[in-house]
Structure formats: structure tokens, C-alpha cells
């Protein structure tokens, strides 16, 4: 089961050295999780491509004449799927036309002045903007996961952070830099309070954190709706819409690449948090306790650790990270709070953490990937008519495959077994 599949020839060069069986085993397992994750992505993309192709009317029409013109049917299907992915790529990484346009400008100054440069980087900026809350919320799941806690409460913690960040944003008057710091910290505290609550309930009563966090999601969802329904609470004056006032411009997260790109300090905060979580887990006594409690609570208790305190603490920090995700949305892109602000971040957070294998670096990578899918999907819909929802389907497929490694192993082991001996061409095939 742990033999490296032919798709990972990278594992081989190390094999010659004198290493213990344990090390071999561990490497094999780790490799295989990374391998499975990559293969899951590929499987999801392939399946997603088939789905886009066969929900496309032109393709379906061509396939009804399959027996008279099979080439046409296959070509149409390929065009539809490829077109979709190309549009996704252009919307999330770069668009060759924009790059070409940039180089056709007479001088660099005109390129910058007329926004050709911004246009080139616009897709990447959007990817970063979309990825920011996903990374932060993903960390909110990944960190408690390392301590053995499954945080399903991203949504409630997000709302908690959003309420704090938004209220501090519009109701308080502070100078520019201070206001941002206060709002960001407020977002953290708002999320941390809800995370801590779930952890503390588990620590004191043994109630399972999954149940508690799910219930808190409902509590916070309706609490937010209530807050936004009354002028005396958070509803913006002079209207009856469920929305707050816009936050003060002093509380906006600074843009970092000019006024034409939405990328802001929030993205840097997210990266810093990912590094911070890595540092916390691997370089501090607190993280040592988290990991120990997560790996073996019983031995941790015998070694004198306070397991319950660790549960509460890790959930508080996790909740705080979800609160920061909210702050990045409220202060970076939305500037107001409405009953839909929390979107699907709570669920996406689980997806991102799962795809990122619960590790901070993995969460950043997964967050960027999903950010790219989100950023590219509107352009994809415009260009190819593929509905935006296909992106959600691909996301769901990725999670499905990642969550069910045996499925991926079965799918790919079969092909790997058949192609044994030609593994090099196969791995080339993956890269193409």
C-alpha cells in the first residue's frame, strides 16, 4: 500500500542510503499523501472537464451525430473543456492578450499610465484577493486539526470577527494606521471568542466540538440577521436594508499595487499568519503541546500537559484566524457587513485545510488554487458560457477525491499497473 507509485520517481534517489525501516515507511506515507492529493486534483480537473463538455449544448448536439461524425463530436467536447480551462486560467493568472498589449506600448511610462501594466496583473491580484480569506479561514481549520480538534465553526467565527471588525470600522473614529490595527485585532478577538467558547464547552463538558461549532454557526447566523435588522443595533441609518454603514476609509486595508488592483495588505497578513501558524506549531512550546495533544492526548496528559486547556486555546486561536478572514473581507473588499457576508467561507475553509493536508504551507497553496478558481470563474462564464457553478463542482470533486484516497488509488493504480515500464511517459503525461 505504501510502495511509491510510478508517478513519484522523486522518491527513488534517496532509497540507496542507509536508512531505517521507519524512515522509509514515513517517507512513503508522506509521499503517498502528497501524491494522492495531486492525483485527486488531476482527477477532479478531468472529471470537471467532462462535465463542462457534456453540459454544453453545442457539444451535446455534435454527439447526437456521433456515428456520422465522431471526430467532430470529440473535437467539440475537447474545445468546450479546454476553452473553459483556458478562460479560467486567463481570469486567474494572466491573459496573453493583455501581456501582448503591454509590450506593444511605446514606452514604459505610457504602459503604466494607461493601466496596461495593471491589466496584466489584474488576474493575479484577483486571485490573491480571493485567496486571502480562504487561506485565513483554512488556517482556522488546519491549526485546531493539528491539536486533534475538527473546527466546523469557521462560519460562526467569521461572523464574530466580521461583527467586531465592521462595528469598530464605522462606529469608531481613529487615525489611519491605528484604526486598521484596531479593526484587525477586533476581528481576531471576535472570532477567537467563538472559537474559545466551543473549545471551552468541550473541555468542560466533553460535548463534541463538531456538534457545538455547527450549532454556533446557526446561532451566529441568526444573531447577525438580528443585529442587521434594527437601527438601534447595526443597521445603517436611513434605510431598511439589512446592511451596516460603510466602514471609515481609515479602516480600509491599504492597497499594495496601485489603485487599479484590489490586492491589499490582507494578503500579506494571510501569508504572515500562515508563517505564524507554522512557527507556532514547530518552534514553540505551545505548538509542541498542540501537536502532542492532537497525536496522543493520553500520553500528553501523563506528561503533565493540560489537555483541556489546550483544546480551548487552540480553538481560540483558530477562531481568531477565522475572524481575521472576516476582517480581510470587510476591510479589504466589501467595506460593509450584510447577512450574506460570510458566504461559504466556513465550508470552503474545511475544503482548503483538507486539500492543504492540514499544514500551513499546504493551506496557502490550496487557498491560492481555490482563490484562482473563484477569480477566474466570472471570466470563464462570459467567455465560454460555462456556468460559474462548475467551479464549485470542481472544488467539490477535489475534496471528494482528497477525502477518499482509496478511490484515487483505485483509479490511478489501475492505470499505473497497466502502464508499468513506461512510467516516464506517464509522468510526462501528467505534466502536459
Amino acid at each position: 500500500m505504501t510502495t511509491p507509485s510510478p508517478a513519484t520517481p522523486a522518491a527513488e534517489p534517496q532509497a540507496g542510503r542507509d536508512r531505517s525501516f521507519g524512515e522509509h515507511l514515513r517517507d512513503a506515507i508522506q509521499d503517498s499523501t502528497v501524491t494522492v492529493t495531486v492525483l485527486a486534483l488531476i482527477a477532479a480537473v478531468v472529471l470537471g472537464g467532462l462535465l463542462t463538455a457534456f453540459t454544453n449544448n453545442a457539444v451535446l448536439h455534435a454527439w447526437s451525430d456521433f456515428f456520422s461524425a465522431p471526430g467532430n463530436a470529440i473535437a467539440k467536447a475537447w474545445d468546450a473543456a479546454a476553452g473553459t480551462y483556458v478562460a479560467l486560467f486567463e481570469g486567474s493568472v494572466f491573459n496573453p492578450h493583455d501581456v501582448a498589449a503591454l509590450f506593444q506600448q511605446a514606452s514604459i511610462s505610457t504602459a503604466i499610465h494607461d493601466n496596461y501594466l495593471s491589466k496584466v496583473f489584474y488576474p493575479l491580484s484577483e486571485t490573491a484577493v480571493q485567496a486571502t480569506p480562504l487561506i485565513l479561514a483554512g488556517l482556522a481549520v488546519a491549526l485546531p486539526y493539528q491539536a486533534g480538534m475538527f473546527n466546523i465553526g469557521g462560519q460562526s467565527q467569521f461572523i464574530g470577527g466580521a461583527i467586531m471588525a465592521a462595528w469598530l470600522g464605522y462606529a469608531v473614529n481613529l487615525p489611519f494606521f491605528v484604526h486598521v490595527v484596531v479593526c484587525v485585532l477586533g476581528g481576531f478577538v471576535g472570532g477567537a471568542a467563538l472559537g474559545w467558547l466551543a473549545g471551552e464547552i468541550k473541555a468542560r463538558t466533553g460535548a463534541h466540538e463538531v456538534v457545538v461549532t455547527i450549532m454556533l454557526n446557526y446561532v451566529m447566523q441568526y444573531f447577525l440577521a438580528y443585529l442587521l435588522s434594527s437601527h438601534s443595533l447595526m443597521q445603517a441609518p436611513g434605510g431598511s436594508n439589512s446592511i451596516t454603514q460603510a466602514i471609515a476609509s481609515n479602516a480600509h486595508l491599504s492597497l499594495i499595487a496601485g489603485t487599479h488592483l484590489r490586492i491589499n495588505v490582507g494578503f500579506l497578513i494571510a501569508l504572515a499568519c500562515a508563517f505564524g501558524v507554522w512557527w507556532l506549531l514547530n518552534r514553540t512550546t505551545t505548538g509542541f503541546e498542540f501537536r502532542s495533544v492532537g497525536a496522543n492526548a493520553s500520553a500528553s496528559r501523563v506528561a503533565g500537559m493540560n489537555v483541556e486547556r489546550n483544546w480551548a486555546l487552540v480553538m481560540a486561536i483558530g477562531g481568531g484566524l477565522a475572524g481575521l478572514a472576516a476582517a480581510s473581507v470587510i476591510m479589504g473588499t466589501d467595506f460593509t457587513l450584510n447577512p450574506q457576508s460570510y458566504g461559504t467561507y466556513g465550508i470552503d475553509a474545511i475544503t482548503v485545510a483538507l486539500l492543504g493536508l492540514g499544514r500551513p504551507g499546504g493551506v496557502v497553496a490550496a487557498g491560492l488554487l481555490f482563490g484562482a478558481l473563484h477569480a477566474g470563474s466570472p471570466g470563464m462564464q462570459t467567455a465560454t458560457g460555462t456556468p460559474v457553478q462548475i467551479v464549485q463542482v470542481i472544488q467539490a470533486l477535489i475534496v471528494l477525491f482528497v477525502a477518499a484516497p482509496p478511490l484515487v488509488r483505485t483509479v490511478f493504480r489501475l492505470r499505473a499497473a497497466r502502464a508499468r515500464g513506461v512510467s516516464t511517459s506517464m509522468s510526462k503525461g501528467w505534466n502536459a
Partner: protein
Amino acid sequence: MELELRGITKRFGLLAANDGISLSVAPGQVHALLGENGAGKTTLMNVLYGLTQPDEGEILIDGKPARFGSPRDAIAAGIGMVHQHFMLVPVFTVADNVTLGIEEAGRSGLLDRRKTRRDVADLSHRYGLDVKPDALVEELPVGIQQRVEIIKALVRQARVLILDEPTAVLTPAETEELFRIIRQLTGAGTSVIFISHKLREVQAIADTITVLRRGQVVGQRTPPVTEDDLAALMVGRNVQLRVSKDLAKPGEVVLDVAGLTVADAGGLPVNGLSFQVRAGEILGIAGVQGNGQTELCEALMGLRPTTAGSVTVEGHDLTRASPRSRLRAGVAYVPEDRTDDGLVGSFSVAENLVLDMYDRAPYSSGINLNLAAVRENAAARIEEFDIRTGSAATAAGTLSGGNQQKVILAREVGREHKVLIASQPTRGLDVGSIEFVHRRIIQQRDHGVAVVIVSSELDEIYALADRIAVMYEGKITGFRDPGVPAAELGRLMAGGADSTGIPGAVVGADGVTRVDDGGEPPAPDEPPAPDEPAAPDEPAAPDEPAAQDGQPAQEEA
């Protein structure tokens, strides 16, 4: 039906759970399988019931070899099993449970419930089981549920009935009833294999007793047999471990446990237990497993709440202290279950070596871990304790049991400590590792540490202890010198009263009971503890050589 097992061997990796076990069960007999947890009883029965396949050996039924690929084969051959945890559907009636899996359809194609009900009623009547076919299982007391399991086996024409720890869940009255039923079954020609670790019950019901230890048959007895004899067989003394050991030089009392009581749902696993341990001495707590040793250790470490009594280390009251403050107060602890409680398997050896010290200098400053110090410590400990590992970064869970234990021991004795509590310190280890661990423990004693060893292996107790306490049902039934005959310890382990009956009396190596005539305790300023049943202050020194040479003759055939 005559059932015979010949040379059954079943290995899990390097461990032989069953090692060449042979036994035969005659028709209408009760054959008891006696052994401690992990002795291989359950594995043997799983082989017999077709749940696992043996690596070697064969099963013969009426002299003909039989192969059981699954429980279905075993049932077809007339073997029935009543598991320790019942396999019943609580919301079904007795009759439905009995028929489950062998449903018979009537002419109409519907379940023939009437026939099952009649079968159940017949069997119930014939063997005096008093089970009503239409009762809901969830509403029945445990004793009756067990009878439903027996009926299930009988309906399937079982002629050999395996009862796996059948009395574990029963009250004494229910146990009596079960014994009556067993006698009726055997009277009708059914054989019963009765698995237990309770000496008294085995004696009461068995026609033949086979004692298993470490996967091997260590003895067969036919009642009447003394409980002492059985206890000695169960815990065994056939491995001679010789670790040279100087005389103990006990100093001040370091660990003082007085009237310690632990309550759980089932009663008082530790019941008003008292003992003292001096610096530089090893107290060995002997006893058959499950007599409160686990609970005692956990209570000593603050892992389990106590309802009465006190724990004091060098005069500091630790009764209410957290596990961490006990560790900080200088208590080193080697837990019984090393994979669950001693190590974090996925952590590296280096991390495990600081598992209870990571937050102290030099391993951390503030909240920063000092990874260099952790690595240096690992390198030193690996060298010092000869831990066989690929590297300090290897996951501890991948090491052999002996090396895992070395990691724990290295960690625990590596920090400042005055008391060492080690529970089953060599369970499951090979002989080489056992010797290593024993030597280290004696070294600790010689450095003036007060050592408590809890072990169900008499060998280990004899090899290490300067003083022996025997634990039975949460109490200490007696303190003895290490020269005490195994038969005497066996008697105490089986719950026998402290026969000397004289306070301060000690049974010496020669088996002669002497009265402590006020022989000088090594620390005269230390008042003798009034609540100890025997003389804890008796200096171990005069009897010490007996621990090496004076071991009583082997009793096993």
C-alpha cells in the same frame, strides 16, 4: 464431541500470541482456560472459532482434522461462542435474536416465528434458563442476555460452547446461576470451554484447567487444586533473571501513601491503600492484573481522582496536585501502557525524550523551543541508553517495544527526581531489554531514588524488589521480604488473609515466620507507620542474599 487442538501457533509479527498450544476437551466436560490478559486466551479461541487462521497446528474434531475458514465453518462443526460483549440486537425480541442469521421461512415465505419461539421455550425449559421468547433483549438483565447468547449457540446445534470471560459482567448471584446452567449443559453432553482469569471460579466449575502464559501452556491441573498453585502458574517464575544487585541502603521515607482510595462506577478499585517507600529502596507491588494496580498508579500520578487518603513526597502533600506538579516535585513515571500513555508515536524520538520537559530550560526559553538543545539531549540519551533508532528524528512509534521503553526510561530518569514509579516496566520486552531495564532501575535505587515497581510478573518482583507488597482487590494483603516463597505470594495474590496475623511479623526467606522484635529500622527517627499491615521498617538487608539464591524450588511440573 471430542475436540482437540494440536500445536496451535499464531504469530503477530514477532510476537507469538499462541505458541504450540495443545489441549483436548472431552464431551460433557468443563475445560477452563486460565491466564492473564495477553496470555493468548482470546487468540486461541478466535482460532478455534474460525475468526483467525493459525500459522501452525491443527484442530481435530472426533479425531478428524477440521479447517475453520470462518465462524460459519466453526458453527457448522458444532462450536458455539458466547463473546464477552454480547452480539445481540437490543430492540429485537429474544426469539428474533436467536433466529437472526438462520431465519427459516415457512410455507408462505414469511418468517416462521412460531417455530423459533417454540425452540427457545423448549431449550429454556430443558436447561432451566428461564428465558421468555417474546421479551425484548434491551429490557433483560445482563445475566439473562448471556443466556440468550447460550440459547443462540444451542439452537445452532453447538456441542462445544466457548464462554469468553462469562462472569466479568455478572453479579455473584448471576454467576452461581450460570454455573448451575453450565452443569446442566455438561450433564446433557455439551462441552464447555470456560475462559477466565478468576482463580476461584475456575476452581469451582472446571473439570480440567489449562493455564496459559505468554502464549504457551504452562501447566494443566485437575481440581482440586490450590489457588496459590494456579496463581503461581499464571504469573510464572520460569524465566530466571539475574541482575546483580547490592544490598539496599534505605534512607528517609520519600514517598508516603496513606489510606489512598479511588472510586469508580464498579466500586473501589483502590481501597484505603497505604505504603511508604524510602530513598534507595525498591518496593515491588505484586498481584494478579486487574486488582487495582493501574488505578493506583494513575492516582499516584494525579491522573485519576482520589476520594480519600493522601500522597506525600518528601513531606510535600501532593494529594490534590496536577500531574505536572507531581512531575515537577520529582516523581518519575513509567506508565503501564507505553504506546498509549508513555509515548506520542508520531513524534520523533527527540521530541519524546522531552515530552514532559519541553517547557523547561534548556529546551525552551519563553515560548520558543530550543531545537538544538532538544537534539543534543536526544543524542546524549540515545548514546547513554543504547536506544536503537535510525536517528533522533525517527518516529518513536516505529521503534521496537524495548527501545520505546528505553526512550521513556531515559526521559523519566533524565530529569531531577526522587521517586520512580514504574508499572509493568518490562511487559512484552525481550530478555535483553528486560535485563537492561532492570539494571537501570537498580541503578536508580543505588542513586538514592525511592522506587515503586508494579508488576504482575513474579520474576520481576523477585529480581528487583527489596520489599514486596501484594495487592488484591484494591488492598495490600501483605508486605513480605524478597526471600518469601512464591507459594506464599500466590496465596496473598489469591486474596488469602495475612496468615501471620502478628503485626510486624515477616515471613523470611526460609519460610519461617519471625516476629519483628524491634530490629533497628535504618532511620530510627522515623516513626513506624501505624496503618501498615506488616512491618515496612524491617530492614531488607539481612534477607537480601536470599533474593538471589534463596528462591524456592520450582513448582511447575
